[in-house]
């Protein structure tokens, strides 16, 4: 059980109490951010793997900082252990002051709570981010780590060369984890007008994902939220508005969209318990924009 900081104890108790009130009667709780309602849809089960995900964050804008504040508020009621970053961790310069402005400042509260961030690289990121202590990349552009029954694969979709493809295939081939989650920058599927689906990347990685039973893929690049209809048994999310937004960028009536949101910045929360993965997408102001449960498919034969 994670120790809750005294400063947030009262807030956590009040909010936790509201979780047991029927949704219809639930009141929105205002916290530090003006008009920020904290409404958790995740079950917070004992022993579950809990994490957050953010993409395209590093603008250093006040809106990015507000997302960081809202994440910290949700952390008080949903103590996630780590955060996945889907790239574009820093736009523009990468001088020491930029790291503060675009990363350690906006997420200070989470860093203070010892929440770990695991980064992947986007098209705006310099290679040496791999050596930044708070990105936990261990000097590598692609890497794997495991939490409970979930294996996480950070990939560098900006430079998917043969070496990386071979590494991914060999790691997945020996991976016996119940859940396999890949996170990287460019979306194999996206309904955004700006970039859209990266079919070149998809052509190379999707057969590997299918072959080795990857369950969930988290990406960014398009500055919107989109949950893609399951493609060949895989759940794809585009979560690329952690610090930059392209309002109105989602194509109308895209056949691959299950749910989308392009009106504000957002982040995501996940909880994995046994064969179920719960997810919640939350706007900068704390509104739930999507939520649901993914049931783990049985391993494919052959």
């Amino acid at each position: 059980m994670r120790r809750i900081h005294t400063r947030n104890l009262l807030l956590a108790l009040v909010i936790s109490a509201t979780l047991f009130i029927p949704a219809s009667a639930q009141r929105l709780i205002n916290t530090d951010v003006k008009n920020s309602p904290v409404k958790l849809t995740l079950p917070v089960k004992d022993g579950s793997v809990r994490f957050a995900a953010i993409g395209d964050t590093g603008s250093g804008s006040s809106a990015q900082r507000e997302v960081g504040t809202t994440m910290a508020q949700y952390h008080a009621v949903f103590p996630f252990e780590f955060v996945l970053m889907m790239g574009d961790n820093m736009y523009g310069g990468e001088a020491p002051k930029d790291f503060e402005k675009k990363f350690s400042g906006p997420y200070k509260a989470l860093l203070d709570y010892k929440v770990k961030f695991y980064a992947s690289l986007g098209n705006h990121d310099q290679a040496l981010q791999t050596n930044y202590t708070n990105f936990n990349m261990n000097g590598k552009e692609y890497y794997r780590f495991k939490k409970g029954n979930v294996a996480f694969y950070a990939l560098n979709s900006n430079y998917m060369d043969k070496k990386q493809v071979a590494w991914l295939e060999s790691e997945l081939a020996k991976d016996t984890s119940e859940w396999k989650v890949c996170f990287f920058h460019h979306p194999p599927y996206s309904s955004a007008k700006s970039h859209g689906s990266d079919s070149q990347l998809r052509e190379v990685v999707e057969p590997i994902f299918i072959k080795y039973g990857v369950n969930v893929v988290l990406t960014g690049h398009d500055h919107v939220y989109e949950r893609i209809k399951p493609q060949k048994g895989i759940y794809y999310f585009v979560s690329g508005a952690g610090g930059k937004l392209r309002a109105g960028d989602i194509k109308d009536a895209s056949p691959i969209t299950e749910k989308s949101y392009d009106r504000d910045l957002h982040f995501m929360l996940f909880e994995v318990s046994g064969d179920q993965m719960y997810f919640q997408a939350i706007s900068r102001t704390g509104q739930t924009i999507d939520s649901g449960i993914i049931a783990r498919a049985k391993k494919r034969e052959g």
Partner: protein
Amino acid sequence: MKLQKCCKYLCVVVCALLSTSAVAQNNQALAPPAVISAADKTTIQTFEKQVKEYVDLRNKVKENAPKLSKDSTPEQIHAYRTALEQSLRSARAGAKRGELFRPETADYIRRTLKIEFQGKDRQQLRETIFETETQGVVLRVNHPYAQTAEFSEMPATLLAKLPQLPKEVRYRFVGRNMLLVDRESNVIIDYMPEALP
């Protein structure tokens, strides 16, 4: 009962076939050009040798830069990058365009890219490369790639067809131009204009 067993076997066979076809498709996407002439093989080998010589040089001058651990602070990263960039630039002072992308290498790469751009994904390839905002990048050998500019995504299918590079060196596109860039310092090692059709 027999029918059930048959169906089961059929399912397994279909799954196996599907899986094989998926992997075959993957392998096809990453396969090198089908036929490489003896002359092209020599060209590729020469290019790879020159790249290796560059890497040997950069690893030697890297010794002048402060050591960078896997859990560095922003200040340490900045100091390392700056020192590496300066050391590399002075070690290669006077480097000129075309020293690695020699005419025969450039010709091979242009032909390879042209073939790739004739495929069904031509439009998607173009969009992937040309949507990149590279304003501020000055095409100049031995000068750094502007830190404020983004990197073009290098499509996996293209990378598979180009001569393979060691981890210290990267291909990049800036518009139709192709660059060879040092991965850590972002110093432009060489570039070839109008590489893309």
